[in-house]
Structures are given as structure tokens and as C-alpha cells.
């Protein structure tokens, strides 16, 4: 059973300015005695998330909304297992993939084909799975002979197409996205949308952060509104998005 449960999740970012980041300065300040006003550990802390309680189960489609800096990305990172909460508990059951930046790991000097292999390995494919998927990815990207060329020779649109084609062959149980993925020209965009919908429909839990009301209402069953790292409102998609987009 796929599920994700967050209990009282709190994330504190330690802020190291150049001063406290340097060992030399710490040694010196130790010698001169006393730390300049901050918390017990001796540095400024910013609270990214505070006491987040969420429980997601099979079939849940969660949308995240909030202003810039409200903690959306931080929460996505906690959910994808990158940040370990500094307070509280998170338990994730299921294979989880985040498509926050699909161009991650794309090496501009390597060819399209080589990049498929690298990105595939980063996403956790075994060599055998990769061999199975390679043809599918190549075909979907419609890049033809360009797959043997270094990616730096690709146009931005073509690079995105490649990244999109590789990243969306996954079949995770939990899918985390920051905004809906878009790639390529109008025709490709259409095809990409279809593939993404397919992927989203197949995943058991979807978590997506977005600023688009239409998208959220269409894809989500629940929405969480974050403000200053706290949940300001939680409920069904219509109600929360009306409240959020209405207040703007």
C-alpha cells in the first residue's frame, strides 16, 4: 500500500554567512570568546516548514499552492527524501520519483544517446530496463539522427524534448512535480501532455506544486495552501483554490 505520512514535520535551515562557514573564524571566535547573537548552536536559523501534518494514501492527488518562499519547494524536497526533517517524522512507502528539474544530469558535451543512459541511471534504471526503454525514448523524442550529436548542438526545445522523453518513461508509485512539465513546439507539447497525463493517471500518489488554478483543479483532489512554512488551509481542490486565488 502506497502512502506518505508527515507528522509535525519541521525544517530549519541553518544560515551560514561567510563568517560562521569558515573554520578559521570559528577557531578565532573560540579564542576571543562568545558568539554573536543567534541560537544555541551559534548561527541564524530560518524556519522553512513548521509542524506540517499530512497523510496521503493510494489515489490521492495533492496540489500545493502558496506564494514564493512559502515552503513549497522545501516541502517537495522533504517528500522526495532529499531533506531529512529537522523535527517531526515522515514515512514514505512506495517508489518515489521527483521530476522537479527534468534537465538534471544532462551533459551538453555528451550525445543524445549517452544522455539517455546517464539520466536513466540517475533515475534508477538497471542496464536491462534501460535497454528495453532506449528505443521507446528515442522514438518518442523524434530527434532521429540528432541523437548521435552532442546535446550542446541541440536547440533549447530539442534539449527539453530529450529530457522530457527520458524522464517520463518512469513508472513511480509516488510522483512529485514542480509545475506541469512542458516541452517542445505545439505538436510535441500535445503529445507530451498526453504522455504526462498517462503517467499521472498511473501513479498512485501525485504531488504537484503549481501556480495555475486550472491545472490544480483539473488534476488534484486535495490542495494544501502553504504560507510562511505553515499550512494555511487544506481541503478539496475547488474550495482551497477559490480561497487562494480569490484572496489575491
Amino acid at each position: 500500500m502506497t502512502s506518505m505520512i508527515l507528522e509535525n514535520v519541521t525544517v530549519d535551515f541553518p544560515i551560514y554567512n561567510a563568517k560562521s562557514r569558515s573554520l578559521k573564524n570559528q577557531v578565532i571566535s573560540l579564542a576571543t570568546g562568545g558568539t554573536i547573537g543567534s541560537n544555541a548552536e551559534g548561527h541564524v536559523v530560518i524556519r522553512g516548514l513548521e509542524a506540517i501534518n499530512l497523510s496521503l494514501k493510494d489515489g490521492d492527488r495533492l496540489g500545493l499552492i502558496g506564494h514564493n518562499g512559502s515552503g513549497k519547494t522545501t516541502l517537495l524536497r522533504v517528500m522526495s527524501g532529499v531533506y531529512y526533517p529537522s523535527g517531526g517524522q515522515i514515512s514514505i512507502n512506495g517508489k518515489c520519483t521527483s521530476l522537479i528539474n527534468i534537465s538534471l544530469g544532462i551533459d551538453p558535451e555528451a550525445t543524445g544517446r549517452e544522455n539517455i543512459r546517464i539520466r536513466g541511471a540517475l533515475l534508477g534504471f538497471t542496464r536491462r530496463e534501460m535497454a528495453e526503454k532506449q528505443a521507446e525514448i528515442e522514438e518518442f523524442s523524434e530527434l532521429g539522427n540528432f541523437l548521435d550529436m552532442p546535446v550542446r548542438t541541440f536547440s533549447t526545445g530539442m534539449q527539453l524534448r530529450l529530457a522530457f522523453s527520458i524522464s517520463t518513461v518512469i513508472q513511480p508509485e509516488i510522483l512529485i512535480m514542480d509545475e506541469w512539465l512542458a516541452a517542445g513546439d505545439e505538436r510535441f507539447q500535445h503529445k507530451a501532455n498526453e504522455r504526462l497525463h498517462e503517467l499521472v493517471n498511473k501513479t498512485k500518489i501525485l504531488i504537484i506544486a503549481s501556480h495555475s488554478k486550472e491545472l490544480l483543479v483539473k488534476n488534484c483532489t486535495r490542495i494544501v495552501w502553504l504560507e510562511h512554512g505553515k499550512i494555511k488551509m487544506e481541503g478539496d481542490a475547488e474550495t482551497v483554490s477559490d480561497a487562494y486565488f480569490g484572496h489575491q
Partner: protein
Amino acid sequence: MPHGTAAASGIKGPPLGNGKSRSTTERHASMTIAKSQKITAWEDVAAAVRNFRLAALLGWQDVAQRYRRSTVGAFWLTINMGVLIGALGLIFGTIFRSPMSEFLPFICVGLIVWGYYSQLINEGCLSFISNTETMLQLPLPFFTYVLRTWWRNSIILFHNLVIFPVVLLIFGKFINFNALLVIPAFLLVSLNLLWMMTFLSVICTRYRDLTQIIQNIMQVGLYVTPIMWQPHQLPTDKSILILDFNPFYHLISVIREPLLGGTGTLLNWGVVVVMAIVGWTIALLFLNRFRSRVTYWL
């Protein structure tokens, strides 16, 4: 568990046909799974070693990049190293009045191996910092990035090693059976460097200027370690202090001595073994303590 053995045999067998049904159940068995509880250091290291293919692929890509725009590729580093060995060998050999046939092979192995160690240590400090983007998006085992650095430099080491037989040929010398000792030596030495890199990558992510300090130490290390001078040139009463307390002397000796026909002293081997055990214990405890903080420091 029968499941595991089925998977293992599935890899060997020719497969796609009957592997199909299996692969659907096991699809993405290795997909990055976020854990519900804290990931311990040993789980991290074990997972990275199990998926060594990823580290090797990334490390190989780093080297391949050098080949993409130049046919000579990573051999440029070898050419540089060759020139350095030739020049330093001639000068220091003349200063010390050492016979070239003995001194040049000595400095050759020394410089190649030292180059490998110092690159590993210096780049080891940056293992996490240079992978910031990936670390903030994918919950991969952290040790993978350390292995990537290690693998990239090991490939370059093997490029550089071609210089050694050339030097031997010039002087009409040959290696003997003791040379086989470099295999266990390389394993032990790698174990040692990997714990150092693991430790450094964590602490250098937190304290950014530590990298500079380490670089400095490694620069001095080149001169205080017997690489451009031979251990027997030291007055015996000073040699204990200068040699035996220098871990890099032992790390170099277990590789250099076998290649030059000797075996290395028992002390050399003893220190390397003990250091690997103690070092890994400390590095694992350290990683375990700070693992969950590392991504916040990036």
C-alpha cells in the same frame, strides 16, 4: 528468498522473453526509494556499492568529456605527468647523484601515485559540493558521489601508469613477482582513501575554506613524503619522525616497493591495514552523525 535467486539467474540467462514478466514485478527495483526513517551511514555506503554502476557511469562520463573534443583526451594528463617525471627525475637525480636507472623508476611511480592521492583528496573535499544540484533533487546514496570521484581518478591513474613500463624499458629493467603485491596494495590504499574522502566531503561541505587548507597540506605533503627523494637519503635518527609518522609514506610504499622489486616493510603494510579499519570506523560514525544535515549545508 526465492525472489532474489530468480533475479540473479535472470541476469545471466539470455532473457528478454521470459524476463518480461519478472521485470514488470521488479520494475525499478532499484528506483530511488525514500526511506521513512533516517538512513544510516552503512545503509548509504552499502547502497552506493551495490549500485556501483551509477558511480562508474558518472565517473566515466567525467573522463569521457576529456575525449570528446580532443583525440588525445585524458592522455594529455599523462603527457604532462611524463614531462614532469622526466624533468624532476633528471634534476633531482643529478642533485642527489643517484644512478638514473634506479632513481627515475622510483620518482616515476612516486609522482604518479602521489598525483592520484592528492587529486583524490582535493577532489574528495568537493564530492558533495560539486554535485549540489543532483543531491538536492534525487535521494541517491551520498557515497555514490565519493565513488564517482574515486572512479574518475582511478581511470586517470591507469592512463598515467603507461609511463612506468616505458621508463623501465629505457633502462632495460623488469618487474619481478613482487609486483603482484600491487593488487592487494591498491585495494587497501583505495579503502584508505575512500574513508578519507568520505570524511572530508562531509566536513568540507560544512566548512568551505577547509578545502583550501587541505590543498595546502597536500602541497606540502609532496615535499615531506619521500617522492622526489629516497627514504635512505635521510639520516637514520630522523627517519622515524619524518617517515613513520607520515601516513602517506606508508600508502605510497605499499605500491611503490613491489613495483620496484621489493615488498615494502611490515610496518608499511601494518599501518595501511590498521588505518583502513580505524579510519572507516571513524568515517562511518561521522557520516552517520551528520548525514541528514549534509543537504542543508549545500
